[in-house]
């Protein structure tokens, strides 16, 4: 049973579409407050997997917690989680925080931001905690899990009416995002963080960006946007955040 909670969006049926079938058993779940009873367990598993990946594996010590759950100041009722499952297993995820609310970019990583946002903060969201479970990334290919998440991220941003998404990542993600057909603009010069060149940037959200990511990853269009309000184009969201 899947759960969506998209109270902000008018028309729950529309959002329900976001929960879609990707291949045999993969599904993207949109989880936000108030979290439905059936999503509570999935969200909890997300926090634990995030701790494993971001702290134990990537060594982000600043967010280490004794309870082995990665829950930070931005896992609030304002956050929306896109969680990817394959059967019963959680295999990937991403978090969005509206830029009008307290967010990671403008607090912890504000030193990376020198330029202005491309539009009003009300038109943007900060994309954080992108991950695919490491055992799903083996082999020389773009994992279908990543592809599904990238497509879901852009689709979600369009549905929410965002014009852009911000992210903080190693600069290598710029190449990945651009190769998906996304337009990505740095918000400042890169800096070395934890020994890695790191940059803040924004991705333009647009119908074209969605078409491009679908085409370049071979993910089928699901017709979701046919139901969504149209006419909003503009800057789009980046997809590859390490933080």
């Amino acid at each position, binding site marked *: 049973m899947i759960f969506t909670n998209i109270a902000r969006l008018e028309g729950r049926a529309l959002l329900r579409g976001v929960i879609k079938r990707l291949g045999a058993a993969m599904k993207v779940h949109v989880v936000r407050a108030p979290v439905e009873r059936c999503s509570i367990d999935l969200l909890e598993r997300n926090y634990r997997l995030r701790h494993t990946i971001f702290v134990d594996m990537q060594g982000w010590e600043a967010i280490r917690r004794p309870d082995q759950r990665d829950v930070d100041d931005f896992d609030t009722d304002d956050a929306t989680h896109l969680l990817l499952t394959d059967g019963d297993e959680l295999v990937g995820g991403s978090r969005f925080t509206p830029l009008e609310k307290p967010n990671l970019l403008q607090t912890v990583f504000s030193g990376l931001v*020198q*330029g202005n946002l491309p539009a009003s903060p009300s038109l943007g969201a900060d994309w954080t905690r992108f991950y695919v479970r490491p055992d799903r*990334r*083996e*082999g*020389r*290919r*773009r*994992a279908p899990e*990543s592809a599904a998440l990238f497509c879901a991220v852009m689709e979600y941003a369009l549905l929410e009416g965002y014009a852009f998404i911000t992210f903080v990542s190693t*600069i*290598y993600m*710029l*190449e*990945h*995002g*651009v*190769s*998906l*057909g996304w*337009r*990505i*603009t*740095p918000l*400042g*010069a*890169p*800096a070395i963080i934890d020994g890695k*060149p790191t*940059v803040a940037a924004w991705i333009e959200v647009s119908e074209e960006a969605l078409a*491009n990511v679908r*085409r*370049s990853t*071979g993910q089928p269009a699901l017709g979701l946007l046919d139901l969504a309000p149209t006419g909003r184009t503009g800057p789009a969201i980046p997809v590859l955040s390490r933080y």
Partner: protein
Amino acid sequence: MQVNADLMTTIAKLQEQQDSSGICEIMYRAIGNYGFESFIISGLPDRGVDVRPFVLLSGWSDEWYERYTGLGYVHLDPVARRCFSTTLPFDWSEAPYDHEADLPARRVMDEARDFGMADGFCVPIHMEGGMQGVVSLVGDATQIDDKARLELHMLALYAHGQLRFLNSSRSDRSIKRAITSREGEVLKWVAAGKTASEIADITGLSQRTVNQHCENAQKRLGTNNRVHTVVEAIRHKLISL
């Protein structure tokens, strides 16, 4: 630190380009500002695999390009080799090889020098899924500072990403669709009559991954089954036996 305004303009322009000739022009102008003369942007194939289908954009002279690609120099070149072991850009002169014992490597470096390519700056590109690429600039790398290095790194990432995007969207019907180096490696073993489980043992990949590589190659080449995929890969010189 503020982002270099010229770099921001160049990045924006690169992402507007719809063909590689536009990217070529922008790259020449951009690297010229840092004192570099020429460049090549390419994927790096596994041992024994022809590099030509992996080349995204070449600014090399025709003569050197033919020589380098035709003679399989990519597999001897210490600069290309070093890309597999570092994520950070490096000067060509920092690419290690045994000057006494590794004669093929020395030949490539000496010949490059004879072609007026004595020094350069190399940006390794690590793609998702472990595929390897490179943006290599020809010119004097000793004169650029750390800030310029980081800017050239960004420039290289954008140029490579945009070329890869253009390549993926244009080549839907193109016969000359490149396969990844790992797919090429797996297909070579298929061509040698190995089963998926044997290939898994040989390459250290899981059987599931081996099968996935075959399916991906099949999808890229638009073929109908494994034999058809191998035949097409050989016919288009994507693998050599």
